[in-house]
């Protein structure tokens, strides 16, 4: 961790730019620490404060804009992937989209301070077709707040560097434990899922070409149902030809309308 501070002292603006850029594209890099260190370096005359601010802002906005365009070109794919982890993907997508629609502008401004959200906000803005100019304004506001908050902290507290170095060592140990804990929780979660799903493994499975064979044999005797919880958001999305949508959330109502005399073939992603 103190390596970061040494690098910052030696390569100044370049290492500052690299660190904040990496964080803005989602890498777990302690950019806030780098900003505070840059602030302290500026206080001792090692860096020019205005240049440091400009460099940091440019790097952050650059990284965020890349993610913005990733969101814009992949549409709802990203949100779909993230929501797949939740218990109810469909409502996860709807609620996240609605919440970001209502609070997205403010979210972009404060996102930098919230791990996780900082990486998600720019691509979501892109997914939701925010105008580039508006995005850039909001993102610049957010980036300025972030850079100033940490930069000024580093600048004001003269012995901040030493304190940070000590704090950072404790922080990295805590982080290592947290990562280990997260891995355990993840493994347990999947073990529980596996156990819960054991009953589903007795459901008969059919190869795709077998379904096609049945379809050409007697199309009226079968039905193909799309149970994906996403795939219906982006214009031009594709599905199996002739399939009908069956929303997993609305299954109880759908049971009335489903044909009892047909073979129902289900597919998801």
């Amino acid at each position: 961790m103190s390596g970061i501070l040494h690098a910052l002292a030696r390569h100044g603006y370049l290492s500052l730019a690299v660190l904040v850029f990496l964080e803005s594209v989602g890498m777990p890099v302690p950019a806030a620490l780098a900003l505070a260190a840059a602030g302290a370096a500026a206080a001792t005359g090692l860096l020019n404060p205005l240049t440091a601010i400009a460099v940091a802002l440019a790097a952050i906005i650059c990284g965020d804009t890349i993610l913005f365009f990733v969101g814009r070109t992949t549409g709802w794919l990203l949100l779909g992937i993230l929501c797949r982890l939740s218990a109810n993907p469909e409502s996860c997508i709807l609620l996240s989209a609605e919440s970001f629609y209502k609070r997205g502008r403010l979210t972009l401004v404060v996102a930098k301070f919230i791990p996780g959200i900082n990486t998600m906000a720019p691509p979501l803005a892109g997914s939701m077709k925010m105008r580039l100019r508006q995005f850039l304004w909001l993102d610049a506001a957010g980036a300025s707040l972030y850079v100033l908050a940490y930069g000024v902290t580093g600048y004001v507290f003269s012995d901040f560097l030493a304190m940070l170095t000590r704090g950072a060592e404790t922080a990295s140990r805590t982080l290592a434990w947290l990562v280990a804990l997260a891995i355990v929780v993840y493994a347990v979660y999947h073990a529980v899922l596996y156990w819960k799903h054991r009953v589903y493994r007795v459901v008969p499975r059919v190869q795709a070409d077998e379904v096609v064979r049945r379809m050409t044999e007697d199309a009226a005797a079968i039905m193909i149902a799309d149970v994906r919880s996403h795939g219906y958001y982006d214009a031009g999305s594709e599905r199996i030809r002739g399939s009908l949508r069956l929303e997993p959330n609305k299954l109880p109502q759908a049971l009335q309308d489903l044909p009892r005399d047909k073979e129902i073939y289900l597919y998801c992603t």
Partner: protein
Amino acid sequence: MREATSARVAHLLRENGFSAYVIVGGLAGWRKAGLPMEVVPAGELVQLPTFG
């Protein structure tokens, strides 16, 4: 688990007396096998809010 949603729904349908099956590989497998696809009709798309 692969085909998680379809397996869950198929199980539920079977409990309710339907003859339900899971297509192995899902949509990805179907596409990979080069079997017929179609574009989702505009009327069936779900509208999510956008800033546009």
